[in-house]
Structures are given as structure tokens and as C-alpha cells.
């Protein structure tokens, strides 16, 4: 994608704890993703990947610990806030694709919201369906509108939680190409994945979580393959 991004920004977790009642979902998670990296977060279901990503996306606050975006002197707001793509589209089914993007563009005080919305629709290949209600979209299209929404404010970090789920091979190829282009233009990418795929091939870094703790990291010598396939039956 040709969208210009602000200066490259990394992502740093320092001793992140997250407690839900008596349950410790994350325990002293500390690692750093360098600016411009494309990182994969691996782990079984329930290992804490989603929780960690939601904390990184500033949707959830950690119980203890600090989140920061090194390489960016300003406090996390505006551009420094990551874009977040979760399990849900996080857009309104009863609005059209264009209406949704316009809404979020206006709320985030993006310059020329209408032009921005149109540009994004073109980039994700939804321009022809801009007047259709999101309710009518296929899984692949829902993924695209979710990504478009996440990119509205031109974030320098993009977070994706299991983005390949439910996509057909064409969808996965589209996603891989889009992420590759985004990464090339300077956007730091952190995504959680299961197993190997066209998408995991983009990764320059990987970290594995288990029961809320980091158990392997390519930075400390583990291989990407091992991290992705660790414990696979």
C-alpha cells in the first residue's frame, strides 16, 4: 500500500502482567519489537496472545507493567497509536463500507476524511462495494474493511490477531501481499498466527507464549520454524 507512514516505531513490553480476578493471563512479559520488524506471536489458544495484542492496541490496560513505542518521542496518541485488527471487524454491519470508514476518519480527525476513506477503499479493493452494507460482506471482505479501518489514522504499528482465520487461499495471498507492502513502507507489524503459511513467511521475528509467559524468541536463538510449530501434534 502506498500510504505514507510516520517515522518507524517499535513496540516495547516491560514486565506486563494482566490479571482477571484470580487468573493471571500474562506474567511478566517483556520483549521488544524493533521498528520496521514484522513479528509473529505464536502460542496455543489461551496462551495470552489476544490479551497481549489488546494491551498493545491500548484497548485493555495491563494490571502491572509498561507499554511503550520507542522511536517515537510523543505520547501514544494520534499516529503513534497502533492500528488494531481483532477477531471482529470492529465496524458497523448496518452501515456501508464507505460510511464506516468516513465515520472513523471523522472521529479520528483525519485530514480530508472523504478522500482518505475513498483512498483506503481503493487500496483494499472494496471500492466497487463501497455502497454495500458490511452485513453483506464475505469473510474475506470483512477482513479487508477491518484492515482499512485500522489504517485510517496512518499508524506506524499494525497489530493483527489471527488475521488468516477463515480466509480462502486467494484471501491469504492478498493479505500476505498487503502486509508485505505495508512493512516495506515502514510499518511495524505484529500478528498472532497458528502454524506456518504464506503470511508467517513474512516474519523477521517471532515470539512464543505459553500460559501467559514468553517461552521462546527468535532474538535469543530459537528458530522461526520451531516457534511456529512448537508442540504441534
Amino acid at each position: 500500500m502506498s500510504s505514507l507512514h510516520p517515522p518507524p516505531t517499535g513496540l516495547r513490553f516491560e514486565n506486563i502482567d494482566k490479571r482477571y480476578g484470580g487468573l493471571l493471563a500474562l506474567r511478566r512479559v517483556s520483549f521488544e519489537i524493533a521498528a520496521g520488524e514484522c513479528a509473529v506471536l505464536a502460542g496455543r489458544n489461551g496462551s495470552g496472545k489476544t490479551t497481549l495484542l489488546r494491551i498493545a492496541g491500548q484497548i485493555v490496560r495491563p494490571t502491572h507493567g509498561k507499554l511503550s513505542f520507542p522511536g517515537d518521542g510523543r505520547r501514544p496518541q494520534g499516529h503513534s497509536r497502533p492500528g488494531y485488527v481483532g477477531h471482529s471487524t470492529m465496524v458497523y454491519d448496518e452501515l456501508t463500507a464507505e460510511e464506516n470508514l468516513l465515520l472513523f476518519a471523522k472521529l479520528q480527525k483525519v485530514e480530508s476524511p472523504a478522500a482518505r476513506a475513498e483512498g483506503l477503499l481503493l487500496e483494499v479493493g472494496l471500492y466497487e462495494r463501497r455502497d454495500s452494507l458490511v452485513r453483506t460482506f464475505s469473510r474475506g471482505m470483512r477482513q479487508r474493511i477491518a484492515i482499512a479501518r485500522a489504517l485510517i489514522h496512518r499508524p506506524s504499528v499494525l497489530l493483527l490477531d489471527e488475521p488468516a482465520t477463515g480466509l480462502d487461499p486467494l484471501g491469504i495471498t492478498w493479505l500476505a501481499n498487503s502486509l508485505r507492502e505495508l512493512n516495506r513502507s515502514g510499518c511495524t507489524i505484529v500478528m498472532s498466527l497458528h502454524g506456518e503459511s504464506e503470511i508467517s513467511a513474512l516474519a523477521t521475528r517471532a515470539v512464543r507464549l505459553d500460559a501467559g509467559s514468553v517461552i521462546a524468541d527468535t532474538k535469543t536463538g530459537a528458530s522461526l520454524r520451531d516457534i511456529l510449530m512448537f508442540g504441534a501434534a
Partner: protein
Amino acid sequence: MSLLSNTAVLLGKELRTEFRSRELLTTTVVFILVVLILFSFAISPTSEESREFGPGLLWLAILFAASLMLQPCFLREQSNDTLSSLRLAVSDPFSIFLAKLAANTLFLLVTEVLMLPLFAVFYNIPILPELHYLLLVLFLGSLGISIAGTALSAISAQARMRELLLPLLLLPLLTPVLVVSATVSVALLDRQPIVQWKGIAFLGVFDLVFLTALWLFSEYLLEE
């Protein structure tokens, strides 16, 4: 100001969403209608009694309808996790509440205005003479219901049995609105109408108090 412009944008979204489906409006109108009719079966008032009981029953019907109408308010934002994207997008979470309560007040008022002529006919109560004051009371009362209801629906959306929970939380809380609105309405629709300014002022105070509380706590009500 950022708060107002965000509120305006969000209000546009609320209205557009509702007018596409019109679910809330139609179900609320039908509900109030049914309740008013059932009340008259249960009580079979004479014309004099209607003047005394009618307005109270109208307000009861409005309260019940509102507690149903307010449930989807935050539940709607859960299906696609849009509450998270909204929270990330706006600088002041109060704008989310302001937009919703403005929309809810509007929906309630539209419903009430549609119901008024029917109410006047069924209960044989002329509403035209003091209509402007009646509309003022309807506005202030509906505003109070919306403010409290929007706040509490954010709470009940996060609990189990939310369909039953919202009315249980909301109705005791709205007792002042019911009591005062009904009393003022009865006085307005009396053969010799009186405008009870004390009551009207009280409704204004109620609205202000809860709006302030909502403003102070909006961030926490949306916390995940």
C-alpha cells in the same frame, strides 16, 4: 470543540443505523400502544378518573417501553466489538454517551408524540390546551430517562441476564422522574390546568445531576 463534533458524528451514526432498520421505533410504539390499551381493560376508567389516572399510566407505559428500548443501546456495540474501535477513535468517551443519550431521547420523544393523539382519544383527555407545557414535561422526563438509562445500559450490557437486569436497575432509579412527571402531567390535564413549575424545575435538576455523574464516570463505564 472536539467533544461536540465527535458527538455530532456519532449521533449521525446512531440515527442512520436506527432509520435503516427502524426496529427500536416500531417496537417501542407498538409496546406503548399495547400497554395503554391493556391498562384501560384492567381499570376501565370513567371520564373523570381518566384525567386523574391517565397521565400516570402514560408515564408508566413510557418507562416500561424505555427500559426495553434502551437495552440494545450498548449490546449493539458488542456484536462486532465496535465499542473498542469507538473507544480508540474518540478522545473523550463522554461523546459516545452524549450521542447515544441524544438519540435515545429523540426516539422516546418521537414515540411519545406519535402516542399522544391516541392517548387523548382512548382516555378522553383533551391535550391541546396545554400542549406546549406537556411537551416540555415530556422532554425533561424523557431526557432524564435517557440519561440514566444510557448509563445503566452500559453497566447491564456487561452482566448476565441483561434483559431482566436493566429494568431492575433502571426503574427504582427513575422513581423521581415517574412521580414528578406524572404529577405535573395530571395538573396540566386537569379541568383547571395548573403549571407546576416546582416539578418542572425538579426534573431539570434530576437531568443535570445525572448528566454530570455520567460525564464524571463515562470513562469507567466503558472500561474493558
